[in-house]
């Protein structure tokens, strides 16, 4: 029984390593789209999904290092990502982010 538990513990470690490699490959693919992307909204989409992948990477590193200190980081990345994406979309649509004239 203890032997099998050791095996599954190392299985979790290996699967989190494989997941870190997979998410890193996905970030590289998205980085290609963010640099190459034909139009500016393509770059905005790629940056948005890079941020979501960073949340997943923070969770995986929290599993690998057996710590709980990364949970605040995950929430913070999510909130800042949403604000940044909304501001970028408004800038692409109108050219301004905060409209000054209150008519």
């Amino acid at each position, binding site marked *: *029984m*203890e032997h*099998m*538990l050791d095996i*599954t*513990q190392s*299985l*979790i470690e290996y*699967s*989190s390593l*494989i*997941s870190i490699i*997979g*998410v890193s*490959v*996905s*970030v590289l*693919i*998205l980085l*290609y*789209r963010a640099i190459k992307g034909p*139009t*500016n*909204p*393509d770059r*905005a*989409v*790629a940056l*948005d*999904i890079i941020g*979501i*992948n960073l*949340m*997943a990477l923070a*969770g*995986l590193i*929290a*599993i690998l290092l*057996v710590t*709980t200190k990364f*949970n*605040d980081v*995950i*929430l913070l990345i*999510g*909130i800042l*990502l*949403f604000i940044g*994406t*909304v501001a*970028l*979309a*408004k800038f*692409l*649509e109108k050219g301004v982010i905060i409209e000054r004239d209150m008519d």
Partner: protein
Amino acid sequence: MSGTWINLLFDIIICISLLGGTFFILSGSIGILRFPDVYARLHAATKSSTLGVAGIMIGAFLFLYMEHNIVSGKLLLGILFVLLTAPVSGHMISRAAYRSGVPLWDKSVKDDYATALKAEEKQNQSQ
């Protein structure tokens, strides 16, 4: 560590959810790489990466619960936040792309938003 069958079962569930989340994230980014159009890329991007990050967060939550007996509400809140904000940001980016004149794919056959915009413009003129 007290070894029971429940621990072993939860270890296997954690492995499955981590690898499933990685599969969805990878397939979403391959969709972003391969699709021809901004709107199709948004379709690939938001849904699959939301599902992938939810899988990885559920894996991390179960791992922390089994290892430390910590119920981490922040991870569940992170899942909820991504679930709420990813469709909103995708919609805003696609509307910005349409309003700033990004063309559709040349093989797409239907453009409902153009007719809706035209009807709205006509209504504004008649008022």
